[in-house]
């Protein structure tokens, strides 16, 4: 549903941020994009709703060339939550921020009310409904951006560093909603440095370096590949390191603390 074909992007200042990228994102997929600072991740996702247009090559979203579409029409189907919340928030109150997109996309008054209520509650922001977004803490701003985009229910959700400023409980909630969206056949694309967050979801993992995609494979293959990790400035999730130190058999991974617990209790007579 999103297709990059030999895409190169050069910033107006002359920096080549994407270098001949060809990649496809399909329906119902969970995809993580990882890699060093400056690798080109944000530049890549800004092409998904047409905010940036390729210098060379084409990007097609649901079959439409993004150069022929407005950002608004693309955004209805591809919702992007940006890395820096301050660039996304502009309304006078928290509830108006969530309402804005919904109204723009023509939802009925009733639906707008319901969705705003749901989104603010889900992200623990209801007590701030009538305060200014600028008065929120960093993590709260991020959740407001997530709430605003989730509310209009796009088919593809693109989240650039969604866990910044989030505590463990909010990260768990975010993981829950991502899993729920996937069961509804939605596509979720996550850009993240937070490997401890990504790991339990075992996403298809795209690794970027200097404007190129240097790997595109399951998380279990990326995070056990030492030379790839070094090249992309990644480190191992704690559970991968633990499995290796415990000499867990080839191909077996602890994708979460529960599988690790089971393995340990089967193998070790503690106490």
């Amino acid at each position, binding site marked *: 549903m999103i297709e990059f074909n030999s895409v190169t992007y050069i910033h107006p200042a002359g920096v080549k941020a994407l270098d001949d990228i060809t990649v496809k994102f399909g329906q119902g997929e969970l995809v993580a994009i990882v890699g060093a*600072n*400056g690798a080109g991740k944000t530049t890549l996702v800004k092409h998904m709703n047409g905010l940036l247009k390729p210098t060379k090559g084409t990007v097609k979203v649901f079959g439409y060339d993004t150069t022929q579409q407005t950002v608004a029409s693309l955004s209805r189907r591809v919702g992007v939550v940006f890395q820096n919340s301050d660039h996304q928030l502009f309304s006078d109150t928290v509830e108006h921020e969530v309402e804005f997109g919904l109204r723009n996309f023509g939802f009925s008054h009733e639906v707008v009310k319901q969705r705003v209520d749901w989104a603010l509650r889900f992200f623990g922001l209801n007590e701030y409904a009538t305060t200014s977004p600028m008065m929120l803490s*960093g993590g709260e701003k991020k959740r407001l951006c997530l709430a605003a985009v989730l509310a209009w229910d796009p088919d593809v959700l693109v989240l650039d560093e969604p866990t910044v400023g989030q505590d463990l409980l909010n990260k768990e909630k975010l993981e829950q909603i991502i899993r729920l969206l996937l069961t509804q056949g939605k596509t979720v694309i996550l850009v993240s440095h937070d490997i401890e967050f990504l790991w339990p979801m075992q996403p298809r993992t795209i690794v970027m370096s200097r404007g190129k995609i240097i790997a595109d494979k399951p998380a279990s293959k990326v995070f056990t590949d030492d030379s790839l990790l070094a090249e992309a*400035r990644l480190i191992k999730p704690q559970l991968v390191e*633990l499995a290796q130190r415990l000499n867990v058999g080839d191909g077996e991974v602890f994708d979460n*603390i529960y599988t690790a617990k089971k393995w340990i*209790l089967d193998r070790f007579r503690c106490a």
Partner: protein
Amino acid sequence: MPKIIEIKGFTFHYAGSPRPALTDVNLSIDDGEIAIIAGPSGCGKSTLLRSINGLIPHMYSGTYIGEVYINNLKVSEHTISEIAKHVGYVFQNPENQIFMFSVERDIAFGLENLGLPREEIKKRVDWAIDLLGIREIMHRAPHEISDGQKQRVAIAGVLAMKPKILILDEPTSLLDPLSALDLITTVKHLHDTLKLTVIVVEHRLDLLVSIADRLIVMEDGKIISNNEPREVLKDDRLLTVGVGVPSIVRLRHLLKDACIFKHLPLTPSEFVEQINVAQR
């Protein structure tokens, strides 16, 4: 040990906010400590840091009760620039911090304000640029770099000032994992060599706990725990507060009494060492 930071009966309520951001906070930090502040989003971590560097009350209006001292200076009675001579502060959002027309100029700016000689400024800018690995982008404008690169520039600018008290608000949130690890190693090294006091707000404790002397946990504007990290993390009730307890520590809590560990393991290697001991 002399107290470098003393906070007594401190309450702060931002004007226009539905409730106080901090309530009756008491905290003292020894000279030379490395302390982590953790806690759920919105619990008051950044507010506490702003109270230490004087942004509160000088830049944010609200109800201010109690006292905050740094280096025996009462923060409310000294200007921000006076306090800045003692406290270096890395903002949570780097965009609120960098504003000059080039990365290099931005790092020099703080040093010029300190009134350092030109040669010294040049030396320090160079040092900070290499420390944060940003030589490649030093001539770019701040809006021409990625968000993670902005965070590095913001950190470089503060480290270059070599402040006696270094305060970092979620400094690794935008850094790639290896750079996050490098930053923590750098901060530890600066602490050891320059005898800094360091206060870091962080959600991801996995990388940080091993270098910290102290872990302070906040919830709803109050300090609910304040001790050596291993002691604090022993309490499995922290999991319900929303603190970024490392996976290894969560795994240890999950095993409950099925395995006995002598110490609470904080890293995979400690975990494996301990479980082997337990097995023997």
